[in-house]
C-alpha cells in the first residue's frame, strides 16, 4: 500500500512538480514514459515517488515515445489506469499511437508540456505539439499555471474514465513558462484527491479471460466510418461530462473552471482569443487597455478539443473585433484558433471582424506590452467597422515587419 505524502496547504511547485503529484495521487497502475525536455521532471519526480514508496503501480522504462504510448495502450486495454508525459519530438513520435489509443477508446491521461517542433531544434514552449495532436481523437485540456496543471490532471482522469466518455485526455502546460516556473499551488491531500478521481473501473479489460475482447480490429469500408463517427460522437458529447467534473471539482476546491474561460468580456468591444500562459499575461494587458479607455476582454477554450464553438460564438456576440492569437507556426494558412473561431462565428451568423496573430514561437517572450499593442490594433478595426489592419500579424518578431492579407 502506497505511503501518504504529507503536503502543505500551500506548496511552491512548478508545473512539472504539480503534474507529477497529481499522477501520484491518482495511483496510476502503469506509467510508461520516455523522458524529454521540458517534461522530463514529471517522469523523474514520478519515478522518485515510486522509489520512495509513494506509488504502488508500475513504472515502465521504454526505448522511445512510440514505445511509451504503445505500452500505455497495452496496459490500458489490459484494464489498468494508465498515464504518461511527453513534449515536442516525443509527442511527434507518439502520433501514430495516439490515434490507436483514441480509436480503441482507452482513457489514458497524458500530461503534455508544450514545446516547439524541430527543425530548427528548440526546447522552449509553443503549441506546435498540441496542434499536431489536434485531430488525434483526444480531449485536450489547457492549463495556464502550475495550479491549473495540477487541477486539470486530476480532472483529466475523471473525464477520461467516465463511462460516457472513455477517451484519452491530454493536459497541456507551456514549456518553461509553466513547467519550470514555481508558483504557489494549493494541493488536495492524498485521500481527498484520490476520492475525487475514484477507483478505476475497467471496461472490457483484456485480462478478463472469461470475456475475450478484441482491440484494434481491422474494419474496412463496411464498418470503419461507423467506428470513427461513434468516436467523434463521444468527443462531441463529452462536454456534458467535462462540465459535470468541473462542477464537482469546484464544490471540492472552490476553484471554478469552464470549457470557455473569459476575462472582462461582458461589455467588451474588442476581444482576444488566447490559450495557455499568455492568457494570464493578456489579463494584465486588458487591465492596462481598460485604464486607457479601451473596452477589451479575453476568451479561451479550456478544452481545445472538443472545441466549444457555439459557446465561444455566444460569448463573442456583442464584440466588434476579435484577434485570435496562435502560438504555433501556421504554415500556409491562418492559425488554428483563428480558423476555429471564425467558423464558430460564421455558423452562428455573427460577423465580428477577425484577425490573426502568431506569437511566442520557440519560447519568444510575449509581454503585456506586446499584447496591449495587439489590443490597440484590434480596436482600430472595431472603430472603423471593417478590417483596416493586416489579416495576419506577428508579435515580437525580429527583422522587417511581416504580415499577410
Amino acid at each position: 500500500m502506497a505511503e501518504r505524502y504529507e503536503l502543505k496547504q500551500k506548496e511552491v511547485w512548478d508545473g512539472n512538480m504539480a503534474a507529477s503529484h497529481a499522477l501520484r495521487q491518482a495511483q496510476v497502475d502503469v506509467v510508461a514514459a520516455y523522458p524529454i525536455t521540458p517534461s522530463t521532471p514529471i517522469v523523474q519526480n514520478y519515478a522518485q515517488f515510486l522509489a520512495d514508496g509513494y506509488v504502488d503501480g508500475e513504472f515502465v522504462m521504454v526505448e522511445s515515445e512510440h514505445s511509451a504510448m504503445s505500452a500505455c495502450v497495452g496496459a490500458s486495454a489490459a484494464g489498468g489506469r494508465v498515464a504518461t508525459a511527453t513534449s515536442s519530438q516525443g509527442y511527434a513520435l507518439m502520433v501514430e499511437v495516439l490515434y490507436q489509443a483514441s480509436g480503441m477508446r482507452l482513457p489514458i491521461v497524458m500530461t503534455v508540456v508544450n514545446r516547439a517542433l524541430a527543425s530548427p531544434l528548440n526546447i522552449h514552449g509553443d503549441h506546435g505539439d498540441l496542434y499536431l495532436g489536434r485531430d488525434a481523437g483526444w480531449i485536450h485540456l489547457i492549463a495556464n499555471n502550475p495550479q491549473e496543471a495540477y487541477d486539470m490532471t486530476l480532472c483529466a482522469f475523471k473525464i477520461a474514465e467516465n463511462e460516457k466518455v472513455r477517451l484519452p485526455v491530454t493536459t497541456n502546460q507551456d514549456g518553461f513558462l509553466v513547467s519550470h516556473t514555481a508558483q504557489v499551488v494549493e494541493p488536495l491531500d492524498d485521500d481527498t484527491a484520490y476520492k475525487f478521481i475514484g477507483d478505476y473501473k475497467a471496461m472490457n479489460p483484456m485480462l478478463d479471460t472469461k470475456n475475450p475482447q478484441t482491440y484494434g480490429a481491422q474494419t474496412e469500408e463496411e464498418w470503419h466510418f461507423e467506428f470513427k463517427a461513434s468516436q467523434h460522437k463521444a468527443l462531441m458529447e463529452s462536454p456534458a461530462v467535462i462540465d459535470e467534473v468541473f462542477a464537482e471539482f469546484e464544490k471540492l476546491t472552490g476553484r471554478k473552471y469552464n470549457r470557455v474561460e473569459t476575462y472582462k468580456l461582458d461589455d467588451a468591444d474588442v476581444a482576444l482569443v488566447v490559450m495557455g500562459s499568455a492568457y494570464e499575461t493578456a489579463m494584465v494587458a486588458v487591465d492596462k487597455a481598460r485604464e486607457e479607455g479601451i473596452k477589451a476582454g479575453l476568451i479561451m477554450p479550456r478544452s481545445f478539443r472538443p472545441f466549444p464553438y457555439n459557446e465561444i460564438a455566444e460569448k463573442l456576440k456583442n464584440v466588434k473585433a476579435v484577434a485570435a492569437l496562435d502560438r504555433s507556426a501556421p504554415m500556409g494558412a491562418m492559425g488554428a484558433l483563428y480558423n476555429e473561431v471564425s467558423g464558430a462565428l460564421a455558423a452562428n451568423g455573427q460577423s465580428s471582424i477577425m484577425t490573426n496573430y502568431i506569437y511566442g514561437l520557440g519560447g519568444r517572450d510575449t509581454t503585456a506590452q506586446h499584447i496591449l499593442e495587439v489590443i490597440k490594433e484590434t480596436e482600430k478595426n472595431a472603430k472603423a467597422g471593417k478590417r483596416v489592419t493586416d489579416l495576419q500579424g506577428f508579435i515580437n518578431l525580429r527583422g522587417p515587419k511581416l504580415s499577410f492579407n
Partner: protein
Amino acid sequence: MLQIRWHSRAGQGAVTGAKALADVMARTGKYVQAYSVYGAEKRGAPMTAYDKIDDNPILDHSKWMTPDYVLVIDPSLVFQEEIVDNTTDDTVFIVTSHMSKEDLLSIAKHLQGKKLYVIDAIKISQEEIGRAIPNTPMLGAFIKVSEIIPFEDFLVSIEDILSKFPKKIIEGNLRAIKRAYEEVK
C-alpha cells in the same frame, strides 16, 4: 511587485536559490514566481534566474522584468555589462567578489553610480559548506540588505526547506547564511 534577477553560471544553484526564496516568501502569505531562462546549457554557462513576489497572484508570464534587485553569484559575471540590463537608478546590486567595493568599481565601470553591495559568497560557501555553491550565502546577504522579512523568520523557513539534506549540509548552509548576513557590505 518585487522583482529579483539572479546572474549565475549553470550549476552554481541560482535556480535552487530563486526557488528557495520564493518558498520562503510564499510562507509569509505572498504570491510568487520563480523561474529561469535556459538554453540547453552545460554546467558553467552564464544563465539568469528570476523571482517575482507580490501581494496578489502573479499573472504576467513574460520573462521580461525591471529588477529591484540584481544578485550576481559568480565573481566573473560581475564584469559582464549584461548585469545592468533593464535596471534603474533604484536597482540594488548584490554581487559576489573577493575585491573591495572601490577596487571592483574601478574595473566594473558599468556598476559606477549603482547601489552596490559586495559579499564574498564563494569564499563563504567554500569555507562553511565545503563547496563553491554561493546561492544560500547570497540569500543571507539579500535578507540583510532588503530587510524583506525578519532574519529569524527567514532562518526558520530556510532550515525547513533544506530539511531533505543531511544534517552536515544543513548546518553548513545555515552558517554560510549567517556569515553572509554579517559580512555583506
